[in-house]
């Protein structure tokens, strides 16, 4: 008992210490996690106020990724720079980006393809309103809007075709109105009224979907209501004894993390979209975070889910860590992609903030060696919080994002490093690839762990290549979506897609899919060689998650988006033919629906359909994803 209570006391002490350490605005003294993360906004003047306003368009782009103040552009000198103040890269000049864009895509400054600057409100069809529904909503005091800007903002995710259409000023079917519930009971009322008046509800969290999940179905004739969860963003309670937190599902990743950090905790769930994506969205798509090796994917993190369906509320009766009560009902909810109801509250695991965090990187002579190393790391089950292996093209891509170096000494050092690796060690700069690492834990263990991983890497010809390279690798994933907007200003379109695959097929799949992309582009008349690159981004016991970037210069094509879609389709067929899965964490949406039957068998699909039929016979949640 005594030891027990003393450890509890110690724990409390540590939490309090954590509080003290983490005074807001006092950046330099905060833990490493904050210091070295490019993705976390630098300052958040008002952390008590919700950072996602109802009118999102006030701080975010209506036709591109992220915050309005942050974007890549070529300045007057023709150098690439990243604007704003939010990111580590903000305000910096990126001298090699322009050359990289020219070299990789043939995209030059002369050929511009600017976007429509403002939303043409007359292009938005007038809303198809269900007046009795609105009256009842007003009576229940739920905030709502049918302002065209609000509606357009919630009509899309971030698929290439969606953003491309917006940039061209083309607006398709958009929701007829937007509602903002502020709590679970609001949602219950809304769903009840929707059933009563037979309107179609589409839940909207962060709007970062890349599976056409938010597109309004063309065949839908009822009034479509976008249910924006952003105002349900409170942490309702934190349980220090069980290390769980009960959170409203509309909270977005960075707010959740920040607020937990203030209390000395974190969830450790960091998907690349965490700046904007919401907890409910993670649950609805079976999300995965980059640090899943320590914290687990969303299905490992979630303890309890509350979801409002047309049939009523579904939840478990206790917070037990595991149950044998038939098939886990959570697994009907996770991955349901908004077809069954709205996730309103989630109890999830939290962890104390790690004491120490360290980035790292390893250079391998080629991709094969790198994959072999990752496989060995997975075999020994000693993967760091994150381990990713980028191929050569992505490695060069990362280099293009190096900011201007301030001193001659650093550039000299860089030159020396390069010389050592390519000349002395004989690595071919066109084959070498890099693994980026992130270690977390207490200091002693991290250092020990680091040594173990580097020892394994050495067996596969890997050379440690410093923290800086590792950190830049992670930064890439947060700015890549901004970079796509720059590309689209200069005739370059592209996107990413992912899969999971058994270890023995990783290399074959990567090679075949990349080659298929190149070949399909050629056959479809793309004038410039495409960028077709991949990284192994997660490791598991039995396989890995592979992430592809694909982009090309579309100058000379009459219907570039169609070509893009055909190539992506072919690439997905190739993935499936090579033993890859339909999706690791992006979900199915409407984009990949056609392969669902093949993926889960027709009986499997029938099971899912019958669940949908029972839970939502009127098809109130009519976004038509998945099934």
């Amino acid at each position, binding site marked *: 008992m005594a030891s027990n209570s003393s450890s509890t006391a110690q724990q409390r002490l540590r939490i309090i210490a954590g509080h003290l350490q983490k005074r807001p605005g006092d950046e330099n003294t905060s833990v490493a996690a904050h210091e070295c993360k490019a993705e976390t906004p630098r300052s958040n003047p008002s952390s008590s106020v919700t950072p996602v306003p109802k009118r999102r368009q006030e701080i975010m782009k209506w036709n591109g990724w992220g915050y309005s103040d942050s974007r890549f552009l070529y300045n007057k000198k023709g150098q690439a720079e990243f604007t704003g103040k939010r990111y580590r890269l903000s305000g910096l000049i990126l001298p090699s980006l322009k050359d990289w864009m020219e070299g990789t895509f043939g995209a030059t400054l002369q050929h511009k393809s600017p976007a429509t600057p403002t939303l043409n409100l007359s292009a938005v069809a007038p809303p198809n309103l269900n007046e009795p529904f609105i009256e009842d909503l007003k009576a229940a005091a739920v905030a709502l809007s049918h302002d065209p800007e609000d509606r357009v903002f919630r009509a899309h995710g971030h698929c290439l075709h969606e953003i491309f259409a917006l940039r061209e000023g083309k607006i398709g079917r958009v929701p007829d109105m937007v509602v903002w519930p502020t709590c679970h009971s609001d949602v219950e009322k809304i769903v009840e009224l929707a059933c009563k008046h037979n309107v179609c509800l589409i839940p909207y969290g962060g709007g970062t979907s890349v599976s056409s999940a938010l597109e309004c179905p063309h065949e839908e004739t009822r009034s479509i209501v976008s249910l924006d969860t952003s105002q349900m963003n409170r942490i309702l309670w934190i349980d220090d004894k069980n290390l769980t937190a009960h959170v409203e599902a509309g909270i977005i990743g960075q707010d959740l993390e920040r607020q937990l950090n203030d209390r000395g905790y974190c969830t450790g769930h960091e998907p690349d979209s965490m700046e904007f994506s919401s907890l409910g969205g993670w649950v609805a798509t079976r999300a995965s975070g980059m640090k899943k090796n320590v914290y687990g994917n969303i299905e490992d993190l979630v303890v309890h889910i509350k979801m409002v369906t047309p049939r009523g509320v579904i939840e478990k009766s206790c917070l037990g860590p595991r149950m044998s009560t038939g098939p886990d009902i959570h697994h009907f909810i996770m991955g349901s992609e908004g077809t069954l109801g709205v996730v309103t509250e989630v109890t999830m695991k939290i962890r104390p903030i790690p004491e120490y965090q360290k980035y790292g990187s390893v250079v391998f002579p080629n991709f094969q060696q790198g994959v072999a190393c990752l496989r060995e790391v997975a075999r020994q089950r000693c993967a760091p919080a994150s381990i990713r292996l980028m191929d050569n093209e992505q490695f060069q891509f990362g280099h293009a994002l190096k900011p201007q170096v301030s001193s001659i000494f650093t550039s000299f050092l860089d030159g020396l490093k390069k010389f050592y690796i390519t000349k002395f060690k004989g690595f071919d700069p066109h084959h070498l690839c890099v693994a980026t690492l992130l270690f977390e834990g207490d200091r002693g263990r991290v250092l020990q762990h680091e040594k173990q991983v580097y020892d394994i890497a050495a067996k596969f010809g890997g050379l440690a290549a410093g923290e800086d390279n590792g950190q830049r690798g992670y930064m890439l994933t947060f700015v890549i979506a901004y970079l796509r907007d720059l590309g689209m200003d200069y005739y370059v379109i592209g996107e990413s897609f992912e899969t999971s695959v058994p270890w023995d*097929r990783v290399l074959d799949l990567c090679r*075949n899919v990349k080659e298929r992309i190149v070949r399909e582009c050629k056959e479809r008349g793309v004038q410039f060689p495409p960028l077709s690159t991949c990284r192994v981004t997660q490791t598991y016991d039995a396989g890995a998650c592979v992430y592809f970037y694909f982009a090309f210069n579309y100058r000379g094509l009459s219907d570039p988006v169609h070509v893009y879609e055909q190539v992506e389709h072919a690439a997905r067929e190739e993935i499936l033919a*090579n033993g890859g899965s339909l999706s690791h964490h992006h979900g199915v949406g409407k984009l990949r629906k056609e392969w669902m039957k093949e993926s889960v068998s027709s009986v499997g699909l029938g099971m899912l359909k019958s669940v949908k039929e029972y839970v939502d016979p009127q098809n109130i949640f009519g976004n038509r994803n998945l099934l």
Partner: protein
Amino acid sequence: VSSESGDSAECVAEEASLILDEMAHRLQLSTVRFFAFTLSKAFKRLFRSVCVNEEGIQRLQQAVQEHPVVLLPSHRSYMDFLMMSYLLYMYDLPLPVIAAGMDFMSMKFIGEMLRMSGAFFIRRSFGGDKLYWAVFSEYVKTMLRNGYAPIEFFLEGTRSRTCKSLTPKTGLLNIVMEPFFKGELFDVNLVPVSISYERILEESLYARELLGVPKPKESTSGLLKARRVLSEDYGSMHVYFGHPVSVRSLAEGKINRSQYNLLPRHIPQKPRIDTHEFLNEAAFRLVRIQEENMVLKPWVLIATLLLQNPDGLDLSSLTEQTDWLRHLALAFGAFLDWPDHETCSEVISSSLALHRHLLSVSAGNVQLSVTDAPQVETTPEEAVFHRAVIVLSCASYRNQILHVFLRPALLAVAMQSANSNRKDDIYNCFNFLRNMFSNEFILCPGDSVQDFEEACYLLMKCGVLQVLEQEIVMSASGHSTLTFLCSVLDPFLQGYQVVCRYLCEETNENLTEREFIPAVRNFTLNLILAGRLKCYEALSSDLQKNALAALLRLKAVRKVKVGDQVTLKVNKIAVNSLEDTLGGKIPTQKPILARL
């Protein structure tokens, strides 16, 4: 494998390494150089010229850089793979590793030499031996995956004794395609190669073999004895490298590669039925490409005409008819190598000179005849035998062009026997014949409508036929062409009829499979001696085997296993009616098929 056989794993490993030793190639450049040197000498002695399509070589060069390459030459002679390696060596391409029959290995010294120049040896039959199959396919796949050398093997499995393409085998084809199916390779390029000889080294050897003289075992001393051939003139030789065929594009929409997702890839999987069908179809297509790219010499045309006129032709009418046939062949898309600047008669006389041992020219009359046979008085049987050797040798040249005339000829025969102008009657006949002969010729399974339309189109183009909505009508000028086409197939029709007649008349209840060939041969011989049959080609064991295979396929004959022996059970009614149909006695075969 080890768990299945119950042996210890070590045992299996040991056995596997033995198999590997037996199989593996050891490519050594010095040996290759030695071969290249001697071969270039030998080839210069043997052939007047070796023609290679240079653009094919360039295509190959490119293909080798893109994806692993599998070379699929036609197989007419031992020369084939020597020539292939030699050519690739001369053109500075990576040397192929070649799947060769086991019997070469037993040749002392030469076996090792071949091994060192890139051959690896496989047993001719290993249907039941799982370990052998596993080791072998893994060996081939590893070579393919590592991609350092093209693999070469013969789709037909063995040398064609008749110069007709043989029904392709799919086993090896499956092995080389599997790395693609399983995603281990992005693609595999199959390059069909057609090798044609103006005169085949083994020509009379083959004819004798077909007549029942056993194939001499490959041996070093045999090779030394064969030196004699060096002093003879074998004309020119053509090697045509076809367009690379991508397995990926062949399989597109036909093979669902995700079927391989659920089993670890190192575990061998039997091809499923649809895969098997695909393999078969692909193999037929490849052999068809080989056929189409086969360069034909004028002699082939002459041989065709001489066979149709056993009593000989005078030189002028031979010239005239050859010229006519030449135009017909060209109209049908034959790949004819006709010298540019020579008159027709010059071309013919030089062809005749090259093949003088097969014919006699007296007083302007050209005739197939025995020239180098012993002049001593012979028994009638021996005379027939010698005559048959000549005819079969000559037939092997005609066979080279059969694929050009085949479809129109089937149509011509169908029209003749259908006794009606209605399109569906003719099609039924055509289909019956096609079905009957699908062991004899390369007829892609399931392509029957296509073949029919192709035949109609070709004959219409030449003004032989008019194809109307419901009818097919012969045009006024078409008679001679149709007659010619019918007589192209005549030897085969007669041959099959003889086999049928034999089965009906002669068979005792317990005819074993092994006794079949000699018995048919005797039966045929007697028919010829009695003057009731003029067709010497019916003596060919190849034709007899194919006829039997067709009858088995049509279920007119059944195989019954009794102890060690396989006996043939004949459904006499069915065979009899087939014979009648072949003879054109009964116009449509529909009721007959019903009776089967």
